[in-house]
């Protein structure tokens, strides 16, 4: 294979360097521009213009000594041009005279001030606007990744396994809806802030889970969503540092991400939490997660669902072995979570915890109540958990039937293999499952 020509290589290197600066700066850049234009759609386009200009110029001129400043200046100039054009449009009758005094031009001054001050507030405004509840969840996710993650439309498409046209449409539709609904580029008042933040947290956790559920061999953009969500969460935690649920979500994501290496086996098969090699857990992420949880719990506000889930994840993170797990605390936390956020899935998880903390009969009672209520039909984890508890009670025949039922229900081939293996192991009389 012929080697890439050197000029092509340096052009590629320059492009990658431009994109790296863009990824670092794009959020703040677009946030500052949105403050001036009052329109995040336009701000995003102006930012893109600056990126295109950099991609055209830097490979020839070299990367400027202050690339972030260069991008900002270029975008500012475009913003001023756009502002002038709109002003001109508005004052149609005014003579097309170029009498705007360069240097102490009031428009430039306004734009410059707006871009230099309040960067933190701007960023928070951008985050809560891109994830505005008036938008569909798909548009919220796409706009957030586009405006705050610096992701391109093709990257968003690859990350969510959707056609590029669909990703583009989600962004365009989002921008259009924001404009049509007259959503102001403002921070909501305190009474509205809780709902707006909840919408942001939902978007970030959805991005995280999309990446977390990526399977082996998929495009690297998918698992990269985990890091993207963590980055967004950390940025938000810096901006909304008095909001416990923000730290709760960050804690939950840091701790879940700490298990990334342990949750996939050598053959690419999923490894469940009790079976994971805990030496593969990322200690740095666990430490960061526990710190974020501590912060969330120290703030004077009622405890929320993300903080509770993080507290549960922390019980696992703190346990050196499965046997060391504080199952009573986990059961208690699931009980609180169930009050706050009633859900049969939460109740099923509580059954597992109670089964381990108190005993399989007590756990089974909770599952049986779910079954009687007709909850979670078609959910393979329900018979799987029931089967596990029955097996512990020595009710082998019923246990086997439950695992076979779980295998029937699941759509995941690897999970089916796992359930059938459990069913078979019960058949041979070995009812005790390690872990």
């Amino acid at each position, binding site marked *: 294979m012929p080697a890439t020509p050197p000029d092509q290589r340096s052009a590629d290197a320059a492009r*990658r*360097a431009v*994109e*790296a*600066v863009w*990824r*670092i700066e794009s959020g703040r850049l677009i946030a500052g521009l949105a403050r001036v234009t009052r329109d995040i759609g336009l701000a995003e386009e102006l930012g893109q213009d600056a990126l295109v200009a950099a991609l055209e110029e830097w490979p020839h001129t070299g990367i400027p*000594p202050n*690339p972030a400043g260069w991008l900002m200046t270029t975008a500012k100039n475009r913003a001023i041009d756009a502002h002038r054009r709109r002003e001109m449009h508005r004052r149609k009758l005014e003579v097309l005279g170029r009498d705007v005094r360069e240097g102490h031009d009031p428009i430039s001054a306004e734009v410059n001030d707006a871009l230099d001050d309040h960067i933190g507030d701007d960023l928070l405004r951008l985050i809560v606007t891109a994830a505005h509840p008036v938008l569909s969840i798909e548009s919220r996710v796409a706009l957030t990744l586009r405006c705050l993650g610096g992701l391109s439309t093709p990257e968003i498409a690859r990350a969510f396994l959707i056609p590029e046209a669909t990703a583009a449409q989600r962004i365009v539709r989002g921008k259009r809806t924001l404009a049509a609904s007259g959503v102001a580029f403002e921070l909501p008042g305190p009474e509205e802030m809780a709902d707006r933040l909840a919408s942001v947290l939902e978007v970030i956790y959805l991005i995280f889970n999309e990446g977390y559920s990526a399977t*082996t*061999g998929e495009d*690297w953009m998918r*698992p*990269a969503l985990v*890091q993207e969500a*963590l*980055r*967004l*969460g*950390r*940025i938000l935690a*810096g*901006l909304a540092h008095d909001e416990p649920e923000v730290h709760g979500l960050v804690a939950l994501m840091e701790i879940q991400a700490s298990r*990334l*290496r342990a949750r*996939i*086996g*050598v*053959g*690419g098969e999923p490894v469940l939490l009790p079976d994971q090699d805990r030496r593969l857990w990322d200690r*740095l992420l666990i430490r*960061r997660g526990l710190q974020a949880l501590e912060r969330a719990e120290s703030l004077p506000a009622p405890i929320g669902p993300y903080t509770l889930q993080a507290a549960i994840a922390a019980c696992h993170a703190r346990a050196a072995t499965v046997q060391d797990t504080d199952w009573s605390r986990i059961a208690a936390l699931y009980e609180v979570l169930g009050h706050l956020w009633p859900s049969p899935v939460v109740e099923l998880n509580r059954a597992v915890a109670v089964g381990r903390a108190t005993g399989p009969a007590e756990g089974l009672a909770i599952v049986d109540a779910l079954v009687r209520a007709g909850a979670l039909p078609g959910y393979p984890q329900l018979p799987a958990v029931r089967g596990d508890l029955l097996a512990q009670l020595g009710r082998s025949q019923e246990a086997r039937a439950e695992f076979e039922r779980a295998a029937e229900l699941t759509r995941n081939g690897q999970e089916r293999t796992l359930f059938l293996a459990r069913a078979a192991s019960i058949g041979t009389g070995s009812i005790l499952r390690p872990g």
Partner: protein
Amino acid sequence: MRYIVLLKGFPMADPPPPALMEAIMKLGGEATRAGALLDTAGLAPSAAGARVRLSGGALSVTDGPFAEAKEFISYALYQVRGKEEAVEWASRFMRLHQEFWPGWAGEAEVVKVFGPEDFAPPA
């Protein structure tokens, strides 16, 4: 992806100027708020450390200082989306030295930390 940036420099007669330290704190805060900087700390001169060596089948321990021209100064652990982003943060850091400490010379080594992406089983 994770990168560790190891800063090494030639020893200077004077301590770093306060303006440099101030600028470093500011950049560190920015990188933390950007969700990129996970961990960082200064590193003491080799006089405070030691080396444990295995050579010819024998272990030996040598206390510092060591006669290398350059000493470690700090480490920083970044979570970024690619090498260029780590290089950009390292460059910003070095630019501060250029601006605030004339005469200082050193290097920042950008080292990739193996991560889940490096252990992906075959598709």
